[in-house]
């Protein structure tokens, strides 16, 4: 009788152990599945992340490296992503922090920026230089793709970052504020001035071509 009770205890212990193992195996399987899903979702967003990263970075090579560092870090710290939140913004937050860590932001807050042109300035400049064509869609075509890429890269980082996130990446002001860790009001004012600086740069490149 005593032996039977003893065997029962041992058996119960073994069963409990097996259940614990099965639970652990189940937990690991669930975690592996979640991680694979996370990695696939992150990779599916890589085109959209690159579109923004390309202009947050100073060159194509920098963008390439930043993307790899970002994804390596994201894959390592996938557990800190909260499912159901904006993964593209989460990835870009990592990328922006890495960009800052790498000391690629030498241009600081633009206290010394020359006064940018007003908003109508670029149109006035382009339509003056033109042949009298007044179709606004055609006026814009006086700018080449190179003009635009060069002008964008000439905009100081602090302003360019918000233009790139909002105008190219379609992020809301709130998302851009979170990614860059700045107040929403700062996003708005940098966007306003940044677009004007961009137009000033575009007007300058259009002027150079005309002369």
């Amino acid at each position, binding site marked *: 009788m005593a032996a039977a009770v003893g065997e029962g205890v041992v058996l119960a212990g073994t069963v409990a152990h097996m259940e614990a193992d099965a639970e652990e195996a189940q937990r690991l399987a669930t975690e592996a599945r979640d991680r694979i899903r996370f990695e696939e979702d992150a990779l599916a967003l890589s085109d959209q992340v690159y579109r923004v990263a390309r*202009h947050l970075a100073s060159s194509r090579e920098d963008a390439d490296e930043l993307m*790899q560092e970002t994804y390596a870090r994201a894959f390592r710290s996938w557990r800190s992503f909260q499912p159901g939140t904006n993964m593209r913004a989460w990835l870009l937050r990592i990328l922006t922090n890495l960009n800052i860590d790498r000391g690629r932001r030498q241009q600081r807050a633009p206290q010394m920026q020359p006064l940018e042109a007003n908003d109508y300035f670029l*149109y006035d400049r382009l339509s003056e230089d033109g042949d009298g064509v*007044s179709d606004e869609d055609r006026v814009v075509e006086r700018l080449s793709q190179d003009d635009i890429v060069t002008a964008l890269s000439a905009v100081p980082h602090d302003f360019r970052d918000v233009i790139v996130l909002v105008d190219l990446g379609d992020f809301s002001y709130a998302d851009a504020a979170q990614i860059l860790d700045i107040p929403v009001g700062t996003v708005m004012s940098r966007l306003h001035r940044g677009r004007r600086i961009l137009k000033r740069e575009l007007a300058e490149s259009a002027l150079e071509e005309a002369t």
Partner: protein
Amino acid sequence: MNDPCAHCEEMMQPYMDHILTDEEMAQAEAHLARCEYCRKRYKFEQSLRIYVRKAATEQMPAELRQKLAALRIPLE
């Protein structure tokens, strides 16, 4: 350029971003309806934004796509 146009110019970016109040929006639209000078410049701004976006969009290189996929952590 008279003052209503200067005001309209100030409103252009917020207008395009849809962040004006209803009242400001109505004011801007009323001005645009009667002012060809501003209307042309608003239309240009709209085209410019689309154009900048198109011009600045670069496809991710296929090689980079492969490099990113290779960074995945293998299952144990």
